[in-house]
């Protein structure tokens, strides 16, 4: 058992962890950018949420909104 | 209670008449077991060794195959909505449907198992053990599977998703079913422990299955 060089496996495990975690972070960030662009695009075309217009007068409306 | 009895008889009649497809499960069971020797070779000693496992796997797949009909057909023709609106508690309705489904698809597998076991060189004691484990274990497969069937009821092409959702949940049943059957075959381990745990799993699924499936049906159809 001592004959096996352990280093490649340790490096491999840390590399795998790096890849998985970096992948998650990239997924979250790219997704965020996509959604924000889509929202900005819709707003540019004048499509807005009702609650965004009425917000200052009716704080309760915000609480009842659906996601 | 008469309404539940009527439902039981109706479901069983629908399953065995033309187009019901109850016996296709047994046919599938037979075909899967027949395929195994072609894959692993005709070595009778080996087949005997893996026989209980093969029969259990085939029974698992066969009972899964028929599951997507459990609620989907009633959903298509609208009778599921009537069942939802009826005064009888939905949990009981779902449980009765599960029993009817087991009687028409699970029980035939149990009956056919000794005949098919002959093909795999199982002796009489192993046959008896296998039939007993299947008799006790297949209700668990039906009642765990009915949760998946209820979740997938409103989906187009729910069948494949149903398999993906249900199969991992049946791991314990498979483990203890095969363990008990193997205990008879090999005589190395005690039969009682895995068998009683298998009974416990079946009883627990009899309770959990209808409640979860009824909840899923209520959530999906409204």
């Amino acid at each position, binding site marked *: 058992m001592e004959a096996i060089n352990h280093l490649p496996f340790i490096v491999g*495990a840390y590399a795998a962890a790096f890849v998985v975690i970096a992948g998650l972070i990239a997924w*979250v960030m790219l997704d965020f950018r996509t959604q924000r662009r889509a929202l900005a695009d819709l707003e540019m075309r004048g499509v807005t949420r009702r609650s965004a217009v009425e917000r200052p007068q009716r704080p309760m409306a915000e609480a009842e909104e659906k996601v | 209670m008469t309404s539940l009895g009527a439902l039981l008889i109706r479901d069983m009649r629908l399953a065995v008449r033309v187009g019901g497809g109850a016996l296709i499960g047994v046919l599938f069971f037979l075909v899967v077991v027949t395929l195994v020797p072609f894959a692993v070779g005709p070595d009778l000693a080996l087949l005997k060794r893996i026989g209980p496992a093969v029969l259990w796997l085939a029974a698992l797949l066969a009972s899964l195959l028929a599951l997507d009909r459990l609620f989907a057909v009633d959903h298509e023709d609208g009778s599921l909505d009537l069942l939802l609106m009826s005064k009888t508690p939905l949990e009981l309705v779902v449980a009765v449907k599960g029993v009817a489904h087991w009687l028409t698809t699970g029980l035939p597998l149990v009956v056919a198992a000794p005949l098919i076991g002959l093909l795999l060189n199982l002796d009489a004691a192993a046959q008896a053990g296998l039939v007993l484990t299947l008799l006790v274990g297949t209700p668990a497969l039906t009642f765990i599977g009915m949760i998946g069937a209820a*979740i997938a009821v409103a989906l187009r092409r729910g069948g494949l998703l149903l398999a993906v959702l249900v199969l991992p949940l049946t791991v314990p049943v498979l483990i203890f079913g095969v363990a008990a059957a193997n205990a008879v075959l090999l005589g190395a381990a005690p039969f009682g422990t895995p068998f009683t745990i298998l009974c416990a799993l079946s009883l627990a699924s009899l309770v959990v299955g209808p409640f979860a499936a009824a909840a899923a049906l209520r959530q999906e159809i409204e």
Partner: protein
Amino acid sequence: MSLVDLANPSRFLKFANRALPWLGGVTVIAFAFGLNQAMGAPDDYQQGATVKIMFLHVPSAWLGMLAWGIMSIAALGTLVWRHPLADVAAKAAAPIGAAFTLLCLVTGSLWGRPEWGTYWVWDARLTSELVLFLLYLGVIALWRTVEDPSRAARAAAILTLVGAVDLPIIKFSVDWWNTLHQGASVFRLGGSTIYPTILMPLLVMAVAFTLLFVTLHIAAMRNEILRRRVRTLRLMQAQATS
């Protein structure tokens, strides 16, 4: 700001925008500290340097279970209170939990190669982790099959709760099955007592991983809320034009 306020999606977005940079910063610091400790940890007398893989393997396994726990709590929120934010929390947790379970499997098999001489053994821990991974994939498949988000949430919630009931049973039966089949030859973590020099980095890494999970989860929830807004707006737009 109380928890009740956070239950409102817009307030949650504001909270997420404010909290995420801080959480990210703390996570980076925790990882720097944990990795530093992990590199400095002595080799185990039995397993040599491969014990360093444990600092990744155990926290990943922990997060895999934590994510299912969070999904179960969120499932209760979905079914009992019909709360949209619970739907969002459940959906956002699934891919993250699946990713960490996968990481647990990968690091476990890389650990197993030098220890057991093979990449995969049907060891009780690895096997139940594999079943957990399959259940995660099933939940994700369900989320991707149902188009309407709130209906998908309710279906996924029931599956999550059934899984939460079944997971301990699976764990128990896999343990039983494993002792029946092999027993010896498998090394056990609990067998040798963990030395403080190894326990300390492990705890720090567990904290760092948990912080990472919280950060990712909140960020993914924010994305999901935005995705639903985009969906609602597109539907409104489609209705307005038709």
